């Protein structure tokens, strides 16, 4: 394994068993993260972002979740093969996670200082005094005065609580911080403070970061690498520049044109037609084809492989060749711009209608 790599996920597959069938939450996902690097994991609801994170932490709820296969190499060992005890040591000490809702991740009847000190003492042999000193230090590091050590979570506002959660996550100086939508529940001005904090800490502590979010703005600010997920699969991966300025995958392109821009003057948005596929019943082949304006018969045959379109810019689409077959602008003209078309697309957002239309057009063509 490359010395430089901190985390390497290989062919991770996670499913959930439900009454209605198997939910294919994460399908054959491979990713790697270098030391000190920050990766943005982007996708919509049901894309499998959180499940991936839980997989790394070995916290997939079982039942109903099952890790079907794959490897998660972290500092030389496969996290999926570690004993419960060893995994507990990795969690918190080497890898920490920050959850979306700061209210439910804190214990309401324990002072915040105690909660931080507690998590330090689980992983390091420190005296109570030393642990408390560490807690005061991390609180100050996240911008909360040390005097507030003895206060309870309800005495803090939402943004402050999220800082406390981050303080807990950082108290053991983990090598990897996983943040699952850490700012989604916060207001913009508070979000700005928290993002600023995360960016600073990353610089100071040299730790690696996986930022899970649906917000492409947040990613642009904090991350260096971006991975876009769709229906449990990685569909595009690359540097910020690759993803934002040389977007390749039709889904990623659609995602960008769905966001209203703050400095442009677009009259209408160009949404992706249709809905996320049912993760129990994923379409055959590329999972995006029912919504894709580039779909052809070939897209339905098999799951496309990841192709390196530019150096270290990976795209899962058969229409992309090494030179990056089509560019963002070429495609966006094709997406529905007229309002009638958007209505016909949205009228019946169901996959079967779209697919039958496509079948027809393919049969005639």
């Amino acid at each position: 394994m490359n010395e430089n790599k901190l985390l390497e996920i290989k062919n991770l597959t996670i499913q959930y068993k439900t009454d209605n069938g198997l939910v294919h939450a994460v399908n054959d996902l491979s990713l790697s993260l270098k030391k000190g690097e920050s990766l943005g994991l982007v996708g919509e609801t049901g894309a499998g972002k959180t499940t991936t994170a839980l997989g790394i932490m070995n916290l997939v709820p079982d039942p109903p979740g099952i890790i079907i296969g794959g490897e998660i190499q972290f500092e030389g060992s496969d996290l999926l093969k570690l004993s419960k005890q060893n995994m507990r040591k990795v969690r918190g000490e080497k890898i920490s996670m920050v959850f979306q809702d700061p209210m439910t991740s804190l214990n309401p009847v324990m002072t915040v200082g105690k909660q931080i000190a507690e998590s330090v003492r689980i992983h390091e042999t420190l005296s109570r005094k030393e642990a408390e000193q560490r807690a005061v230090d991390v609180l100050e590091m996240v911008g909360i005065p040390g005097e507030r050590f003895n206060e309870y979570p309800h005495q803090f506002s939402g943004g402050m609580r999220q800082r406390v959660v981050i303080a807990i996550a950082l108290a053991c100086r983990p090598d990897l911080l996983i943040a699952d939508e850490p700012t989604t529940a916060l207001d913009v001005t508070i979000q700005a403070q928290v993002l600023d904090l995360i960016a600073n800490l990353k610089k100071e502590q040299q730790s690696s970061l996986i930022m899970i979010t649906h917000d492409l703005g947040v990613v642009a600010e904090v991350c260096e690498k971006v991975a876009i997920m769709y229906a449990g699969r990685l569909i595009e991966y690359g540097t910020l520049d690759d993803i934002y300025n040389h977007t390749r995958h039709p889904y990623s392109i659609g995602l960008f044109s769905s966001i209203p821009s703050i400095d442009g003057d677009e009259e209408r948005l160009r949404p992706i037609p249709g809905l996320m596929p049912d993760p129990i019943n994923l379409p055959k082949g590329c999972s995006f084809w029912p919504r894709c304006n580039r779909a052809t018969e070939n897209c339905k045959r098999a799951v496309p492989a990841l192709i390196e379109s530019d150096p270290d810019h990976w795209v899962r689409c058969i229409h992309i060749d090494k030179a990056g077959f089509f560019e963002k602008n070429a495609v966006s003209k094709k997406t529905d711009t007229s309002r009638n078309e958007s209505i016909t697309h949205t009228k019946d957002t169901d996959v079967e209608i779209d697919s039958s239309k496509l079948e027809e057009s393919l049969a005639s063509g």
Partner: protein
Amino acid sequence: MSITNSKNRKATKHQVSGTGYWANAWFRLKKNKGAMLSLAVIILMVVIAILADVVSPYPYDLQNADHAFQIPSTQHLLGTDNFGRDILSRIIHGSRISLLVGFSSIIFAIILGGLLGALSGYYAGKVDNIIMRSMDILMAIPGMLLAITLAAAFEPGLNNVIIAIGVAEVPIYARVIRSSVLTIKGQEFIEAAESIGASDTRIILRHILPNCMAPIIVQATLGMAGAILSVAALSFLGLGIQPPTPEWGSMLANVRQHLLTYPHMALFPGLAIMITIFALNILGDGLRDALDPRLKN
């Protein structure tokens, strides 16, 4: 997705659409074997109670002094009592009373308690205070004691027993319904109903109460067990159903003097009570699991 695949999808979709909340709950309940067995027992009991005259081998009040105190035999499957009456026939007829009283008193309690709880939860403030404080007073009196007092105050008889037991249950339903109303009232669809101009009555009847059904059904199933026990206890004390009408509790009361010599006379009515209560409780727990939306996946 291939054509066949999309057809499959349509098929599964079709199964799902049109299946409402209750169908889903039924699906979950079906997987609970204990609850389904209990449901079967209860249905069987209801059927037997309805067909009591047909299925019981003897009239319940047929006395035969020659056959008194018989232990179970092929002639009298569960033996006879001190008057020589067939115990099986009396248990079968007794189930009518138990189920009727259990069911009616719960319905009485649901209607009264539901109305009070809904008003209290919906209007809040003063109304809530007045209703809930009176419920608290009612609750402070032990249910059994209240039922005994009421039953003793009125003429003993079927209707009065139903009311006596029902009244003691009212505060429980009022509380259950009030708390669900409070939760549901805070949801946006109630505001949405207001914004389209729905009247208060419409909001309570169409939007709030149907969404409170789940906890009510669970409570009712468990409450029915309690009510059957109460009617047995009242009859045991002589305040409930009067002889010669057979009732499980009064059957037990009758055998007090003969308990040591002829235990079967107490055993079978006791078993009947136990099985019914047990079945209702297991079913109630099963329903709670099936109707609880938190377990929904």
